[in-house]
């Protein structure tokens, strides 16, 4: 739908896998940071009358 590749990640982490959770979160954060600020899907001040 136009969300840039790399901004959306899927993972299956059990509630017991704390380390995996931390690792995945770190990695996702790193990748998204590398992409820079998102261009779309950012809510600005409401565009209303």
């Amino acid at each position, binding site marked *: 739908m136009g969300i840039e590749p790399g901004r959306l990640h899927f993972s299956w982490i059990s509630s017991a896998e704390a380390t995996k959770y931390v690792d995945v979160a770190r990695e996702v954060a790193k990748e998204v940071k590398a992409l820079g600020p998102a261009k779309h899907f950012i*809510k*600005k001040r409401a565009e209303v009358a």
Partner: protein
Amino acid sequence: MTEKIYTKEEWIKALSGLKSFYNIFVPVRDGDFHTFKALDEKKIPDFNFQNTRLSPKSLVYPQSERIFAYTLDEDTPDANIIKESEKDYSPKAVVGIRPCDAHAFQIVRPNFDNPEYQDPWWIQRYESTTLVGLGCNAPGSTCFCTSVGGGPFSEKGLDALLYDLGDTFLIKALTEKGEAFLENAQGGKEADDAALKAGEDLAAKAANKIEQKISIDKLKDKVQTELFDAPFWDDVAFACINCGTCTYLCPTCWCFDIQDEVLEKQGDRIRNWDSCMFPLFTLHGSGHNPRAKKVQRVRQRFMHKLKYYVDKYNNGVQCSGCGRCVRNCPANIDIREVCELMNRL
């Protein structure tokens, strides 16, 4: 009051000229249907339409509007103090509005403008708007304006009225606002007797073309609680999917919600259209909901339009007979049939 006649080309030119006095809104074709848009170079007004899909109520009462703004920045002296927002009330003209939709504003008015409270936004927008109607030469099969106090050439709520005479438009000013509009309009010439006669004939013929009649005469004398407890509501409501189509398309539905939206330290209080079809509309903080069931919400909509409004304002029903809800209800729930059931009970 001024009565003028324009060729259709002159009329379009006159509208362009009026842009220096008004923000002009005209019906334009937008895909499968018509809608009101601000007149600019790219928009070609199309007066050859039955009615717009969405009612022009949003021009006076937008679906979403910022009503207040505030800052949450504790470092500023006016943190957390809610303040009025700047609003644009520069003159606006809606050209080509159908008489039913203009009548609708009059039906809605007592809700927003009554002796106890006045809604500043609705009133100021309404008052800065000039409504130039276009009579209906060929009313649709779902139109029933004549049953609810209107008509295809009804002047109710209009500032001026256009008659489509084929190659020309006859335009009559009806109020001072309409008079001012015509004064600012370039070109055209004074209407002669032949044009006026043609206009009258057109209006008479159009009224006869409305085949749909609904009866509302007995609603006033019914007892509210008896209609409320009537046996037909389950059947009426069965097919309803509880979407907001009827209420959002309706020119006389006015219910709203107020929401706060915050972006970092900047906050807005926003008013949005709401719908009695949505369960959330009446859900209490405690979890109790007086209209938790679909049948209660459907009943509310019809009772509001056809009974509560009647009792409260003594101003007829809360419906201008535009037929939008009839044509666009996904489940074919037909207010004409429900009204008949209620009136007959």
